[in-house]
């Protein structure tokens, strides 16, 4: 359902789906006033890729300027940073400069989500409302699903040159929910001598190039029936070893 909403957004501009489309679709999908998405794998807030309105853009800029705020916390903790009422005492203590400035800018509630799969970090998704109030249980779940979708699209875009980069198809199994995929990704950092983000790109590229399910490839790697070789691309011939 989420994936279709994002695809609808992409249809508006007519090119492939992007993380920005997931950000835009989240506004109606989660019933918030606006949304913004920052990309980057370091803790400085990354660069703003999309903001659906002026307030969203201001909220992203404020955090960069002030060096504090929900997006930075979400990035650091790997979990959401939720402030149902920015005028409340708790957000004021947590973000003494950001909370009043965000209220001034027109936000009453801010919800930030990491675009992350374990230690793989691609950016953050921010949502705001012009009225205070928590996300309902269902809305929190949907916000997390939009963040998952944005994460995959962002990682796709970063894996430039590989075959997954232009794939708009919905993944059958989301990493992070299947332990073998996460374990296999960790194993590949050693086998290939690359970062966890690149290891995940190589894992997906291999599954895509060989038309295999991610879970199956991961299962083979964890069972040590399959190793991938260091090298630039996901060529099946050069990487398939120890099979069977």
């Amino acid at each position, binding site marked *: 359902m989420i994936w279709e909403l994002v695809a609808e957004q992409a249809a508006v501009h007519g090119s492939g789906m992007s993380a920005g489309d997931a950000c835009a679709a989240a506004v109606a999908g989660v019933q918030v006033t606006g949304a913004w998405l920052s990309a980057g794998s370091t803790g400085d807030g990354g660069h703003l890729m999309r903001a659906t309105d002026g307030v969203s853009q201001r909220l992203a800029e404020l955090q960069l300027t002030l060096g504090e705020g929900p997006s930075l916390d979400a990035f650091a903790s790997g*979990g959401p940073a939720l402030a149902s009422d920015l005028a409340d005492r708790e957000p004021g203590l947590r973000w003494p400069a950001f909370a009043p400035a965000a209220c001034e800018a027109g936000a009453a509630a801010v919800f930030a989500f990491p675009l992350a799969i374990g230690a793989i970090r691609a950016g953050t998704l921010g949502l705001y409302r012009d009225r205070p109030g928590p996300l309902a249980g269902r809305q929190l779940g949907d916000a997390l699903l939009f963040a998952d979708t944005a994460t995959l699209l962002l990682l796709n875009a970063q894996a430039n040159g590989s075959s997954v980069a232009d794939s708009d198809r919905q993944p059958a199994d989301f990493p992070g*929910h299947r332990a073998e995929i996460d*374990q296999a990704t960790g194993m590949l950092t050693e086998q290939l001598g690359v970062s966890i983000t690149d290891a995940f790109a190589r894992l997906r590229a291999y599954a895509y190039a060989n038309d295999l399910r991610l879970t199956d490839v991961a299962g083979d790697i964890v069972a040590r029936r399959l190793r991938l070789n260091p090298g630039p691309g996901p060529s099946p011939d050069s990487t398939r070893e120890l099979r069977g």
Partner: protein
Amino acid sequence: MDGQLLSETFVELTDTMVADFDVIDFLHLLTDRSARLLDVSAVGLLLADARGELRVVAASSEAARLLELLQLEGDQGPCLDCFRFGQPVTSADFSADERWPQFAVAARRAGFAAVQALPMRLRDQVIGALNLFREAPGGFDPEDVRVGQALADVATIGLLHERSIRRSDALNEQLQSALNSRVVIEQAKGKLAERLGLDMSEAFIVLRDHSRSHNRRLSDVARAFVEGTETIPAPRPGADRF
């Protein structure tokens, strides 16, 4: 039952207001102690993800057979029923139980014959479920079930402590962050298993021992190791760790 360990455990499970409190370490304490105190073969814990799924967060052993079974419980089985209805669910013998055919096959393959699922619940809020497994068929000792539920209750109250109850934002932040930390731990297990030539469950023990001996949170150590800023040495040869 070890009375002294039991009272120590209750004290530790109520100690959630400390500054460096970590949900993952806390839930590992719950599963480890439940396995030691109760007459059971294994213990696993699933937490509710706001996305609407149950996800494995901690277990008394990281044996693949146990983790796979727990993962399956997110789709079908006593744990899911326990979570949905907020009530304990038990099966004294899978071979005579037709409620969860797929789960029963997987559980038998993993070597288990009986399960007891206990809700982690406070009033109308169910945040997950604790699963006790036995290798031998037959009912669970009623005292074990009572103590298991008491441990689950104390842990739940600890997690939903006063500050969190007032602010549902804080609880959601904490639980979702713990679920992501669990993913980091899986990634770290994989990296360590490959580096040291271990299986996943051995890799977990090395990771856990390293974090304990350095008095650090398991999830922090796992993240630093995956990011390459932390070195974890191989256990000394001959050390009886596994």
